[in-house]
């Protein structure tokens, strides 16, 4: 995974709460077996409306999405993160993220920055008054900057460290393989196995 310390890009105000993952990417696009190439799928139902914000200049070149509370609820589909990244987003700002979406973002190098709703409101106004205004997401300092607004954001320590270092999760865990094997030796015998198959 690529290291991230700060990112600066055009902010996109999405004044909506409960943006669920079915909106971010409808199920019909989940039939693909690749991990990339989902940019056409992002918000595909909403993008049919020519007034949707991502259809407008300069927001179609945006890379920091600023959304209402409860972003990424619903289905666990990591495709939602892939689609956001493929479209060009590098960070999403919201006052509340669904747990699974936040986890998936951390695995894929999309910064899910939790910003207080009052600050989100200020940033929305700034972006609407100055279309094309850029937002800087400083992962090191845990600050977002937009015009004169400087707001702190929350992200858990471990995810932040992994993003800053660009570390692969599986590689990190496999450093403890002996501990895993030792744990396995102690598992009770009554725990089920799927093999051999019984029906």
């Amino acid at each position, binding site marked *: 995974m690529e290291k991230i310390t700060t990112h600066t890009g055009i902010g996109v105000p999405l004044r*909506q*709460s*409960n943006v*669920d993952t*079915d*909106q971010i990417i*409808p*199920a*019909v696009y*989940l*039939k*693909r*077996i*690749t*991990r990339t190439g989902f940019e056409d799928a992002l918000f595909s*139902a909403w993008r049919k409306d020519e007034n949707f914000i991502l259809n407008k200049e300069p927001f179609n070149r945006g890379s920091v999405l600023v959304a*209402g*509370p*409860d972003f990424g*609820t*619903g*289905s*666990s*589909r*990591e495709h939602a*993160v892939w689609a956001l990244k493929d479209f060009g987003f590098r960070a999403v700002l919201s006052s509340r993220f*669904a*747990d*699974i979406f936040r*986890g*998936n973002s951390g*695995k*894929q190098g999309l910064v899910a920055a939790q910003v207080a709703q009052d600050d989100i409101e200020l940033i929305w106004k700034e972006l609407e008054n100055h279309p094309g205004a850029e937002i800087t997401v400083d992962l090191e300092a845990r600050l977002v900057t937009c015009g004169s607004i400087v707001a702190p954001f929350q992200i*858990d*320590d*471990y995810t*932040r*460290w992994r993003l800053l270092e660009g570390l692969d*999760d*599986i590689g*990190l*865990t*496999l450093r*403890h*393989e002996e*501990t*895993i094997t030792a*744990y*396995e030796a102690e598992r*009770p*015998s*009554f*725990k*089920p*196995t*799927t*093999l051999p*198959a*019984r*029906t």
Partner: protein
Amino acid sequence: MGKTLAEKVWESHIVRRGEVVNGQAEPDLLYIDLHLVHEVTSPQAFEGLRLAGRKLRRPDLTIATEDHNTPTIDIDRPIADPTSRTQIETLRANCKEFGVRLHSLGDAQQGIVHIIGPQLGLTQPGLTVVCGDSHTSTHGAFGALAMGIGTSEVEHVMATQTLSLNPFKTMAINVEGTLKPGVTSKDIILAVIAKIGTGGGQGYVLEYRGSAIRALSMDARMTICNMSIEAGARAGMVAPDETTFEYLKGRAHAPQGADWHAAVENWRTLRTDDDATFDAEVFLDADELEPFVTWGTNPGQGVSLSQAVPSPDDFADENEKAACRRALDYMALEAGTPMKDIRVDTVFLGSCTNSRVEDLRLAADIIRGRQKDPDIRMMVVPGSARVRLEAEAEGLDKVFKEFGAEWRFAGCSMCLGMNPDQLAPGERCASTSNRNFEGRQGKGGRTHLVSPVVAAATAVRGTLSSPSDLDPVPPAAALPAESGSTIHAA
């Protein structure tokens, strides 16, 4: 101090406790007892293993099925949609290559991933269960810690049989009292979500407790835990008890002989200690509950069926006001309209929320001897091939067919708009599934989430209805095929 059920299961699965390194708190590394796999969220994970030259660590703790893409009619023919077919074929090839047990379309054990785990007896108390599917929370009904994960985590579990997880907070959902006839566990969970909101459970593991929960069957408990994710929770749990043990005993993968006794002894310790404390508590009075239904486009936008469509003015919060306005527009509803005046086009009985045999029985008991509204299309989709067979052995298929409903093969079907079963734009559906998001059941489709008995009553009247709205059935037609099944048992 005592521990909660969730904390006990967590503690017993810690492979390595997270340390503080350079001032950064690491998460705990937890062992995963059971990994459920389906075709949609696994291909990129298998590919990741292949590219890194890694093996699947524990094929014997892994099981796969085909459910999201599969058609529910003509299942003996090749899947018509080429991308769906490719995804299914990819799963088959991956399972073969990595030695994963797979229940394919047409197999007697095939079905929705969250139906087959419990049905095979693989889902057991005290396990950690994961799947690349948010409704993995279903398995919490057995006192397992069961979580939906993303594809990167699927790959992580495949390679290591563990997950790095930050500890959760705990929330007790106390439901005391007795449900009225016609009120089911679906109404409990819809009421919980309306109460705490779609983000209310965020960061929490919910534990459903109280006399109303204890009185529920396993099928009904699974319905509740299934929708924990709709309250934003990472998992939902019910402490195992005699009902749980009774359900498991004799199932294919339940412990046998001496192992059974050792297991039950262990399972009996899986309850929240009397002196344990939860980070949050919610109380719900079962006696007061009525059939519940959603009016909007997120599962928290629900009301009692006897109420009316709310107005944006009913909400103080600006975001909720805006969400209400947008939902009314999408759903084509006027504020103030009684919910029972809303006419639907389609009734869908199915999904991992409500497609177990008890759900089908409850719905069949309502429609037996009654006429379907002629303009309603009703689809009944059993959760697994085995549920279908069990229902047929009880004659439920005949009840549905005589009523004029379509009796389908097992799969996710119309829950998620990924297979041929979809709503047309503007079509309105009373659905026993779990999500009423925009376009969830098909582009432009409009979803009202309901219980199986409300779905059945709605199919009779054509408008959203509870069983108590129905005219009595003439005595000769009212006799159930099987004795002992009652509406309020759920």
